[in-house]
């Protein structure tokens, strides 16, 4: 049974090019079956009706946990603190009546705040543009058994490909590193034969881009894997390191 709860929100408000700060809002009569984003919608309705300021800007798209758009720090944790849950899939039943919730944008030098809770995560796209694809025109889907792939490899590649690029790993990393993201993207191709022709260049270019954009350096503290709403494992970071070492040793390829 759903019930209604009242909450106090401390939300980060920031306009483009200006310094930001926390502002307090009351969220009244929130249905516990509502998602976190729906709760923000209710608060935004009130702000809009009052007409004194602009509603809270937050990023969202599919609202079913697969697009990677949403994400904020909720009480200091990326996407809230529930395992394998994006912010849109976090439900209000996890909060108590009268609770104060602090909502802050993802923080990293490579993720500048655009407005309120929206940060610029295009750095992740730039890393993808350096080789997170297979540059072959494929035409129609080939017959499935032309290239046999071991089940374990296919599954590991699919596990890596689960990454939705939400950026929680970067925000949770004490060093603001994009290692888990890059590792997932490198791994999904390194594990499949289709990715092999370009694997050397791919890992070098993607790591170089990651460094250039001001992401930090991994210190193997595994906060990223805890934060990941898709359960991407640090196994992929070990694989990225191996791919990088192999690529360096096979110079001139």
């Amino acid at each position, binding site marked *: 049974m759903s019930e209604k709860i009242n909450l106090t929100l401390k939300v980060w408000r920031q306009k483009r090019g200006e310094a930001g700060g926390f502002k307090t809002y009351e969220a009244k009569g929130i249905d516990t079956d509502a998602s976190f984003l729906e709760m923000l919608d209710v608060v935004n309705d009130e702000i809009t009706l009052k007409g004194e300021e602009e509603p809270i800007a937050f990023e969202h798209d599919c609202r079913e946990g697969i697009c990677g758009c949403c994400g904020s720090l909720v009480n200091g944790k990326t996407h809230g603190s529930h395992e394998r849950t994006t912010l849109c899939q976090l439900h209000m039943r996890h909060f108590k009546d009268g609770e104060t919730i602090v909502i802050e944008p993802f923080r990293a030098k490579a993720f500048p705040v655009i407005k309120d809770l929206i940060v610029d995560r295009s750095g992740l796209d730039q890393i993808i543009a350096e080789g997170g694809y297979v540059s072959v025109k494929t035409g129609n889907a080939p017959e499935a058994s032309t290239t046999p792939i071991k089940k374990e490899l296919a599954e590991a590649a699919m596990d890596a490909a689960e990454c939705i690029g939400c950026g929680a790993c970067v925000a949770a990393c004490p060093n603001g590193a994009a290692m888990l993201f890059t590792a997932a993207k490198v791994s999904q191709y390194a594990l499949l034969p289709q990715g092999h022709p370009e694997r050397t260049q791919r890992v070098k270019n993607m790591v*170089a881009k990651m460094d250039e954009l*001001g992401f930090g350096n*991994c210190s*193997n503290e595994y906060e990223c894997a805890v934060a990941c709403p898709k359960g991407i494992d*640090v196994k992929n970071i070990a694989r990225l*390191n191996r791919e990088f070492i192999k690529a360096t040793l096979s110079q001139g390829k």
Partner: protein
Amino acid sequence: MSIKTTLMTSIGQKLLVATSGLVMFLLFLVPHMGGNVLFLFGPDLFNSYAHHLHQLVPVVIGIELLMLASISVHMATAVRLVLKNRQAADHRLSQKSSAERSLAAKLMPVSGVMIFIFIIKHLLDFKFYEKAKTTLHGIETYDVYAMVLSRFQSDPIHLLFYVGFMIAVGLHLSHALQSALQTYGLYVPREGSKIKLASAVIGWGMAATFAIIPVVAFIK
């Protein structure tokens, strides 16, 4: 990509820290612990070990130079990385770390600096220090056993300093070993990892072994 460009990338820098650290661990810390343990077996064995080590001077100097190079690379790279990482993750207000982030991992820079301070003090205490002579099987040699005794006996503050700084060694090693292996590409899982466990056992075991010597010297 040249070797130099590779070493300047984030993964390259981490490989430098891991490798210089492992060199110090394997070529210095492990043999040093082995030698120290001989202290527990009395003056003859310990002085004889020191005597034989002294006869290997060219090798010892070679290792010392290698250690000097390793610690320079290790510290310079680590400082650079820590500063870059601070920048990459600044302006965090409400953020909390999870239980995953161990104290050892969090305190790596602190334990690192503590170990550096300890090394300087340790060198002043025992390396650059006038040693008495003794005779062992008719050969005149340095009485390092007596030196260790004299440095710790009736000096509880000195003893506390040594034991206390070994906590930094335990902390540093317990994260360092597993982290270096993951950087080399050997998968160290988050949960139930034998490598993580071994890393902690070896790290704290070595720190405790080192700490026993001043304690024994103090109570003798």
